[in-house]
């Protein structure tokens, strides 16, 4: 599985997007929520991702994702949403894994 992280530009970010996204990844990795061999990386234009974690600073969620192919997408856009984002990603991963079976 390949997970890409895409950030908006951060003009009105109400929280530290990098730190919170890092914490989401840390939690996913530390409790074994990700299938073995999963790659988590900063999204690269043109690449295909099973899941695109799109980290935005506000409700506008204006990150340009037009150049990122993805099967599923999860948005994070407000402070104190680390746990809910992890839960949302887990749901999506389970969906991807079950459809693969």
């Amino acid at each position, binding site marked *: 599985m390949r997970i890409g*992280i*895409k*950030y*908006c*530009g*951060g*003009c009105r970010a109400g929280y530290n997007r990098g730190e919170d996204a890092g914490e989401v990844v840390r939690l996913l990795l530390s409790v074994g929520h990700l299938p073995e061999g999963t790659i988590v990386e900063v*999204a690269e234009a043109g690449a295909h991702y099973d899941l695109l974690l799109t980290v935005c600073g506000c409700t506008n969620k204006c*990150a340009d994702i037009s150049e990122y192919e993805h099967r599923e997408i999860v948005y994070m856009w407000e402070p104190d949403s680390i746990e809910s984002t992890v839960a949302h990603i887990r749901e999506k991963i389970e969906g991807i894994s079950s459809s693969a079976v």
Partner: protein
Amino acid sequence: MTLKTGDQYIESLRELKTQVYMFGEKVENWVDHPIIRPSINSVKITYDLAQDPEYADLMTAKSNLTGETVNRFAHLHQSTDDLKKKVKMQRLLGNKTASCFQRCVGMDAFNAVYSTTFECDKAHGTNYHENFKKYLTYIQQNDLVVDGAMTDPKGDRGKSPADQADPDLFLHIVEHRPDGIVVSGSKAHQTGSINSHEHLIMPTIAMTEADKAYAVAFAIESDAPGLFMIYGRQSCDTRKTEPGADIDVGNKQFGGQEALVVFDKVFIPNDRIFLNEEYDFSGMMVERFAGYHRQSYGGCKVGVGDVVIGAAALAADYNGAAKASHIKDKLIEMTHLNETLFSCGIACSSEGFKTEAGNYQIDLLLANVCKQNVTRFPYEIVRLAEDIAGGLMVTMPAEQDFKSDLKVPTESGLTVGEWATKYFQGVPSVTTENRMRVLRLLENLCLGTAAVGYRTESMHGAGSPQAQRIMIQRQGNIAAKKELAKAVAGIKE
């Protein structure tokens, strides 16, 4: 990918032979000069953030000229979304630097010159648009900083360029050669000129045939023979030269910069000329550049305003006054004013349109309304910030006093530093040093070096208030509004 790193930008400046004068002397190593370096750091961050995935969405764009990813400051706007992203990028950079980051003038000049040369070529059969496309491709591929330079000193404001007692008070062509032109004159108040690799020169007003020698646009390397700059000083600037200066500077890392750029018989080759006596297109170039630049202020000043508001709120916390209802109300008012400016910047971008050349232009009326508000709101924001901060921001002893080990010969035996620290403590949970730091930052923004950018530049940069009022009158379409009133009132004439 054609993006430089911030460090590569700094090194590229060292390769230039730009001639800089300050305090009556030539500055040999201007890159490391303590007064100049903070302004270079502000430009550097436009490179650093373009490399950072957390900010690249705003800081970069795909070039319509090369298809490559370029710094947004070198980009031609391809949509209203690009126009909005420009404003958001400027707010972001204002947040990061609390200063003028100087690179907007180049971006605004690129977009104005691109569309104007297209229409000039169509009318006159000239080849300026192709010249300019080649030039901008070179700028994008080398990720260069360009000073978009418009403002002439203008001498006697009651006289046209050709009628000035000294013909050099507006930059003009002094000689035509088969391979180019020679120009003399100067550009005043030039933001970031010393920190720029190149200059893109535009005329400063609409011209008539009598002024055609002044209707000239071109690009030139910043270290070209005959070109030099005289640094513009800022309030409290020499604090940066004090030994160990830190807290008293207010913003140690970042700053803005303006200079007088002088052209003493400078040669411009043909392929770098974008207007050469076509006086009927001078006004279009001026109006388009001014429009873009008036949009810009709906982003950059808002970003700095965010820092002013944050600093005022911190000062209230440190003073123990944060719970007072009038303090809360003042912070609300500051936020309201600041977000109104942002709304104007976004609005004139959203209502933008495609030019004949293909790049996007802002809505001129809304951009002028944006800038008109910018001539007022930052002044009210700093007034409220000073109100919240209290008088200490201008009466506090020097940083050296707070650090002084000199014993005062009184019974207590305390040092100067201990006395100062004791009496300038606010709430017990915050150190006196942190209280000093936020008050000095406010001083810097309200009346120190950064006030050049946040206050007086808000008044006169991108055109003084009356220039916007003239445009608002032209664009306001009062005649159509009269018809609306007649229809509603049942007036038939």
